[in-house]
């Protein structure tokens, strides 16, 4: 199902509440928020269309779906943008009131699509949503624009009826959310009920089908609905708890990273502080300062902001300080497509710094996995005393899915090398750089600790004493040490497994990040094999051997072939790239087609 309207219509809110309802009804689902960069883009235009796609069902769901079966279009522009995506025979609910000559012109329709044969292959339900909503909330004495803002809940009421859902959880949510605004609260609840009643009443019951979707067969346990930003925020808080250290999250607002900052400001009781810095550079520098002071420093941004933070990452590498850097990848270059998703910052993460400055890189494959990778990122950062970059595909920030709530108690504690005892007369600086032989992490010595007073910084340090050193042999040694340290991460991570299919054969599809969903389905459909990478740098130790058991390695990516380059570079293999950089996720069908073509050897 796809919900589409103007960016001021409250589409994202309506979609996320429908997702909550879906979760509570026990169905599996995946969502894809698709919205413009402008906060309130010109109303009625095709480029101002905000949409929310949700795929729900009884079978396990891993993508937001290829071709929607249901479309709710709030205006002609939303219809025009969404129509080419629909499945033939799909059900379209149109907001009839909005099909005015002016709106049709703005959407670029020369004639009213309701009149011609454009919609012949679909089931169309016309509802005067604007008008019916105004009637429903008339008694509350709201202004015209306030009344109009209840329209999304009216429509949500209709959808809940169509899918046979309970009104109660959504009503409870409205009560909580609008507790301070009793009139708006009551008006929205009235609109919700009116939309639901509209579905139920005789007038349209013949044309308006009730859609029944079976409950999914999911692993037993306790679930919640979670977005990437929510899961990542909880993961960061959990990492702080496991390390028994407070967290300082430092960031500068940028799309689509900001939801993480917003979530974390609400987790203060979990020992998380937030600092909104004056710019991207200050944000990472403050995180470094926090880590230097013994807190877990975390920063987050998107590609352009990460670029600004690059020099400071080098400082953290040089000073051997832990830090988690989250990159919510969006379309580029430059400002690019701020609200559209991409996976094009892999080179930036792995190779994108001056000098030989390696850092470990991780990637989250789904909203829920953001939790696991945040914990893993902080674990690596503190064990090896290094900054770690976590790549997340931008749209996961707001995309929700059902999430099996993890058991925090079962997670291992996060530790760094213990601070040494200080024998009388010893050189404190030397103690500061006595590194663990396996992880090469140094002890996390912080100002305030007596007898360990020393200096550190971005100038090259002597390997043993940490004093400034311009010695050629020492720089060679330090460069090799920094590389070896990051390489040593591979000794602590699990071997790569095969996500789906056999562990040898004609073709294996290798993916990373949010392509997990569509690749999983396409591989299932084609009966091939799927390897999903969570550790991007260093790669799991067995990956080369594993990939060598397949005749062909296909790498679909939402970039111009960056993981394929990495695999060529690190493993010396020759993978086949399948690239898509349209700002939209892969469709299952296009992946399955390509896999089939590669298997037959006739791919163009």
């Amino acid at each position, binding site marked *: 199902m796809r919900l589409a309207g103007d960016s001021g219509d409250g589409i994202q809110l309506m979609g996320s509440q429908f997702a909550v309802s879906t979760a509570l009804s026990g169905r599996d689902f995946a969502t894809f928020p698709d919205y413009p960069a402008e906060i309130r883009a010109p109303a009625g235009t095709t480029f101002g269309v905000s949409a929310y796609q949700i795929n729900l069902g009884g079978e396990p769901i891993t993508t937001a779906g290829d071709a929607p079966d249901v479309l709710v279009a709030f205006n002609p522009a939303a219809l025009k943008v969404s129509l080419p995506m629909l499945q033939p025979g799909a059900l379209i609910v149109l907001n009839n009131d909005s099909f005015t000559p002016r709106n049709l012109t703005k959407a670029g329709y020369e004639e009213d699509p309701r009149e011609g044969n454009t919609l012949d292959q679909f089931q169309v339900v016309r509802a005067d949503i604007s008008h019916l909503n105004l009637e429903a909330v008339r008694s509350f004495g709201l202004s015209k624009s306030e009344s109009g803002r209840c329209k999304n809940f009216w429509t949500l009421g209709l959808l809940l009826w169509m899918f046979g859902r309970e009104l109660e959880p959504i009503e409870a949510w409205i009560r*909580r959310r609008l507790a301070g605004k009793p009139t708006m609260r009551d008006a929205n609840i009235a609109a919700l009920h009116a939309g639901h009643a509209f579905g139920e009443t005789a007038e349209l019951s013949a044309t308006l089908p009730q859609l029944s979707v079976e409950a999914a067969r999911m692993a037993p346990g306790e679930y*919640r609905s979670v977005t990437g930003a929510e899961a990542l925020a909880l993961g960061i808080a959990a990492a702080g708890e496991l390390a028994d250290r407070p967290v*300082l999250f430092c960031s500068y607002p940028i799309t689509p990273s900001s939801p993480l900052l917003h979530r974390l400001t609400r987790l203060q009781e*979990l020992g998380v*502080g937030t600092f909104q810095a004056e*710019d991207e550079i200050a944000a990472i520098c*403050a995180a470094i*300062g926090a880590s230097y002071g*013994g807190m877990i420093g975390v920063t987050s941004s998107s590609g352009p902001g990460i670029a600004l933070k690059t020099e400071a990452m080098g400082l953290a590498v040089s000073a051997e300080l832990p830090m988690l850097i989250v990159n919510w990848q969006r379309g580029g270059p430059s400002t690019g497509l701020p609200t559209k998703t991409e996976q094009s910052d892999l080179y930036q993460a792995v190779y994108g710094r001056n000098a030989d400055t390696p850092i470990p890189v991780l990637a989250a494959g789904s909203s829920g996995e953001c939790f696991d990778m945040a914990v893993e990122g902080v674990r690596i950062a503190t064990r090896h005393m290094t900054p770690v970059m976590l790549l997340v595909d931008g749209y996961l920030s707001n995309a929700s899915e059902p999430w099996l709530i993890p058991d925090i108690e079962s997670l291992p504690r996060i530790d760094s090398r213990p601070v040494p005892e200080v024998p009388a007369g010893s050189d404190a600086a030397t103690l500061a750089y006595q590194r663990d032989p396996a992880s090469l992490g140094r002890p996390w010595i912080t*100002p305030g600790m007596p007898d360990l007073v020393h200096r550190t910084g971005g100038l090259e340090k002597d390997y043993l004493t940490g004093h400034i050193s311009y010695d050629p042999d020492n720089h060679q040694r330090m460069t090799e040490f920094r590389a070896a340290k990051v390489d040593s991460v591979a000794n602590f991570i699990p071997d790569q497994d095969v996500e789906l299919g056999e562990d040898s054969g004609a073709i294996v599809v290798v993916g990373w990040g949010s392509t997990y969903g569509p690749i999983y389905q396409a591989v299932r459909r084609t009966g091939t094999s799927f390897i999903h990478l969570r550790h991007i740098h260093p790669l799991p130790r067995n990956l080369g051997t594993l990939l060598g058991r397949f005749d062909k390695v296909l790498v679909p990516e939402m970039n111009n072939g960056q993981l394929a380059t990495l695999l060529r570079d690190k493993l010396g293999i020759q993978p086949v790239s399948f690239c898509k950089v349209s700002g939209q996720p892969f469709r299952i069908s296009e992946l399955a087609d390509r896999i089939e073509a590669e298997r037959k050897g006739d791919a163009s």
Partner: protein
Amino acid sequence: MSEQLTARDFTTSQEVRWCPGCGDYAILKAVTKALADVGAKPESTVFVSGIGCASRFPYYVETYGFHTIHGRAPAVATGLKLANPDLDVWVVTGDGDGLSIGGNHLLHTLRRNAGLKILLFNNEIYGLTKGQYSPTSRKGTISPSSPAGSIDTPVSPGQFAIGAGAKFFARAIDTDKTGLGDVLQQAHAFDGASFTEIFQNCIVYNEDVFAAFTDRKNAAETQLHLKHGEPMLFGGDGSKGIRFNPDTYSLEVIDATESPGEVLVHDERNAVLARLLIDLQLPVALGVIYRQPAEPFESAFYTHHPTQMRRTRSVAEFIKGPNSWTVE
């Protein structure tokens, strides 16, 4: 039972690598003495710096020290101060580091009033990169990057600070042991962001740029040492004074013996007066020019935090959210 430490206890074994005769030596001496005088503890004192000649400072002080990247020391120091507000955190920067590449961070650090003791060594030149004109260089400065004279209007560190909302601004001269020592102690005692401009002589690239008022022979006539609540007198025997001219809205020098009633009394809480004093050409105003106590950023950070940054709930209690369900 810690014994009284001396300046020597705050001096590291590192070989100092500033040019012979550099004003930084005098500042280093004054700072290590001030640390001893205020009873600082090496383990809870941190010097954070950026890049430039001034920024080598932390390597030479026997406390914790972090030599970071160009212009960013205030940001690193802010994170450190939030992580551990009990630390005494000093930031050492220069005119290029603090007002050019790092101007943005200085601006925001000052307006937030983060509890950092910021020392800006102003020599009106880029020293470490071999002598280019800096944001405080006077118009017409001849340098390798401005052979025909620089065309930029310089920034006034003091006006910048007051404009940014700084709560403490003081000035001193590198070689003025008494004046600098006193200002460093005041800067240390201030609970919030203290910003101190130190006129520092770059012997190689900008020698004697401040000689008009730093030369000891004329010091009495060219320096106005301010003390809160005391009349603004100078000129050896205090024969000269400063008064406010209401017609020109500026300060001017008068004969203090002739009209002692017109001599202004220093009020360090008056930001308007501070602005006038900062612009005073000769004599040059030194000492604490402006001081207005206000809640430091790190204190607000902890008091506004419902649990003072302590973990009072576990993630396990929080993780379920408002809507969870069980699959059998």
